[in-house]
């Protein structure tokens, strides 16, 4: 009997220690990066066109984002910023078509400061939107350094940092998830299940390195069955950073009329240089 008990304890103690270690690591991540996770309040003007005429109404909602540099550049899920991003612009179901324009965007930092911001770049392909303060902040903002990254393996435990809603005082929250699938085609992303309800937030491997940003992957095909099958995914840091570089350089959207395109040449002309046959990464 004694032998059995001893064996059982011997088996359980490392397990308990291991759990305690995970929680300890997780708390360190929260402490280190929690301030980089912010709340974004957005008002969009929703335009619904039917039978040639358009009705407008504004909708207000909050989402989360991750600040990725000290100037306040933040990344979030495009779906949260522009709900029409998953719609095919040519798909006018029952004669209705929808479009959304951002009317107001404000970042609320961890210490409660509210910063008016613009959406500067959208990437529908990756479900990313980049938000930048309208004015340079008085002091550098807390941010997540995405260069300190890692690639999790299948079934690895990862921790996602989020912020709760206003009713919970926008408190920081942590959630442990597992990598349920690694999709590599056409690009790499990590599927983490469907329990998460907040996107644009960072995911970490348990060694404290950033695994990427949580986004929504939705199908682009015309298969009715898969039309509404979304995956909550983590987009690797390298992919996000590559786009972020363009977001840093992005200029505000032009408001004044631009010259018309030549009708026979509908393709936008590239102003980027190299004809060199190389992949970006």
């Amino acid at each position: 009997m004694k032998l059995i008990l001893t064996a059982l304890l011997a088996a359980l103690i490392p397990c308990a220690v291991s759990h305690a270690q995970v929680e300890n690591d997780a708390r360190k991540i929260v402490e280190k990066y929690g301030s980089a996770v912010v709340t974004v309040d957005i008002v969009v003007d929703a335009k619904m066109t039917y039978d040639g005429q358009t009705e407008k109404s504004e909708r207000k909602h909050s989402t989360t984002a991750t600040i990725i540099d000290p100037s306040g550049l933040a990344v979030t899920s495009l779906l949260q910023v522009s709900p029409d991003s998953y719609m095919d612009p040519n798909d006018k179901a029952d004669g209705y078509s929808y479009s959304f324009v951002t009317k107001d965007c404000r970042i609320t930092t961890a210490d409660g400061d509210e910063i008016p911001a613009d959406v500067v770049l959208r990437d529908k392909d990756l479900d990313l939107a980049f938000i930048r303060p309208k004015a340079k902040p008085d002091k550098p903002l807390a941010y997540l350094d995405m260069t300190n990254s890692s690639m999790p393996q299948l079934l690895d435990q990862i921790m996602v940092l989020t912020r709760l809603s206003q009713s919970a005082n926008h408190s920081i929250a942590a959630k442990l998830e597992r990598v349920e699938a690694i999709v590599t085609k056409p690009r790499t992303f990590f599927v983490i299940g469907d329990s998460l309800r907040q996107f644009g937030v960072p995911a970490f491997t348990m060694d404290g390195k950033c695994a990427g940003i949580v986004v929504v992957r939705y199908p682009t095909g015309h298969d009715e069955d898969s039309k509404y099958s979304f995956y909550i995914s983590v987009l690797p840091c390298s992919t996000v950073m590559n786009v972020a570089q363009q977001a840093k350089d992005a200029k505000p959207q032009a408001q004044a009329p631009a010259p018309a395109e030549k009708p026979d040449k509908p393709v936008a002309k590239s102003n980027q240089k190299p004809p060199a046959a190389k992949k970006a990464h």
Partner: protein
Amino acid sequence: MFSKLFPNYTRVILPVLALICGVASLAVSAGGDEIKTEMNAAVAAVRPALIRILVVSAEYNQGREIKVESAGSGVIISPDGYAITNHHVAGNAQRLVCTLADRRVVDAKLVGTDPLGDIAVIKLVSPDNKPFPAASFGDSSKLEVGDRVYAMGCPYALSQSVTNGIVSNTELVMPPNMSDEEFTLEGEDVGSIVRWIGHDALIKPGNSGGPLVDGEGKIIGINEISVGLSGAIPSNLAKEIADQLIRSGKVTRAWIGLEIQPLLRSSNLEKGILISGVLPDSPALKANFKAGDVLISLGDREVVARFKEQVPLFNQYVADLPIGKPVSAVVTRDGKQITLTLTPTERQKATAKEHEFKSWGICASDLTYLDKQEMQRDSDSGVMVTSVLPSGPSGTAKPPLTDGDIITRIGNDNIKDTAVLRTVTKQLTSNKTDQSPVLVYFDRGTKHLVTVIEVGKNEDTNSGIEISKAWLPIDMQVLTRQLAEGLGVPGKTGVRVTEVYPNSSAAKAGLKVGDLIVKLDGEKIPADQVEDEEVLPSMIRQYDVGAEAKLGIIRDGKPMDIKVKLEASPKPPRDYPTYDDENFEFTARDISFADRANGSVTSKQIGVYVETVSEGSWAALADLQADDVITAIDGNPISNLQALKTAMTSIAQRKPKTVVFKVQRGIHTSFIEIEPSWPDNAQ
């Protein structure tokens, strides 16, 4: 279209089955020469005066004034162009366009409106100063159940139409199980003074405001509701209201502040009306009326209201009492008769008109007597917020204003009403380009709050641009396993080219429809299921724009390589700069790649693409539609957005009576004649 013309009113709008212009067809079903002769005469007397009214009204929602279109009916009652209709048709009109029976179209102006009686009077503008055909009123008090009547109007905005039936009820009131709200217009309970003429001549949405006509061709009612039976406002009441509206632009009624109900059955009384309540600050309160009193007589009239049908008659009598002159009243209280004296005052509106305050991002109204009582406020000073634009200065304030808040003070200025708010707003915003933060004091229920609002136009927020990535300018389908076998290349994966965009790098490189792309720079393309349609585009997006990619293709069964320079992905339509015309209320942009690629615009088409057209706008009234391409304005070609902006700027300065757009709608071309009403001062 019909759903837009006949929005879901809180009341059931008048109806009709249209026997279009149907004198002959009516006669066939009715049978008998006598009836046919009567119908012919009745219709001939009124039909020329019958009008279809297209109405552009203002609604207020989310801090914005929004125009809406609807249609109704009316009838001309004087040769100089006065016409009667329902308040719920034309009472909030900003623009009225009438179509006469002879198909002429003329503008009209709102003369006055009365929500309590649901009657409005408009005046048609004669283009040639010639008199209009007019119908005359009959005596609705002489109607009897069974009398033949004709409902005339424009159901569903169809042309002038007639249905027939009989009078079913001369004193129709709403039963207790029907919500009063359904028959309430702007806070006014129409059923409190109206006993409808119930009839079975079919009426449909669009018949509202049209006449109910007797066998002699006289107007004996104005059709208003449909509750199984059709219901018309009796002509005697309608005429009385219309006369006042024509005379003074408004209806003046006396008010005593009594709330009343029919006698309780248990009272066993034969006469009188039960006082259920006495409103604060009212003549009745000053006269010492009390809830529970039974009013036996008022002035020189004995009061009898044992049934609900009798209550509107009492209310009509009260409304006609002389304002400011004392009148005696006898009540029974605790078994004793008491004589009281009360002095009626002028009845105020139940609700006040809403106004849009763009600088604040709110819609707001003055407080009425009823608002003050309902909200249990000490005074009617203040401005009531009726809706808030979420992105506007008031919607983004901390705390934000919300519906029902009462603004009492801005900075050091007390805000008594909307006129004061307008003046203060001008002081705060004139000659300023930036927002001005100001303290705004407001009441929310019993709480007295204050907030900081940055009054003025909001700074534009950017929606961002779509990232530009490498793109192969073709359209494609996945080379599925089955397709590969069918095409004689079993085991191959990749895509089949379905379209090569003209003048693109793919066209220049020689790619053709039917080519099978199986490799990209020597790498297999792992696409073999329908869902894999994004595989090759995603692989391409990994390249730099301008990079050269080697495509391994199979053409006519033979493998070959083609080098293609990758282009930048086309700019999506939403990233195109837009022009927003505030006068005609449409937005437009240059034609995008997507417009041409999806076939909604032909490859050679020149013009500007209409993105949105606001409901009720001048552009919408003229039938400009989203997805149209404007190709010319007043004969001048419009080739791009700059040309459109130049043209519209010139139009705004010249303020012409009509502007003609030439538009392309798919393969069809049409000319759209816009007839704007230019305001003297833009707000």
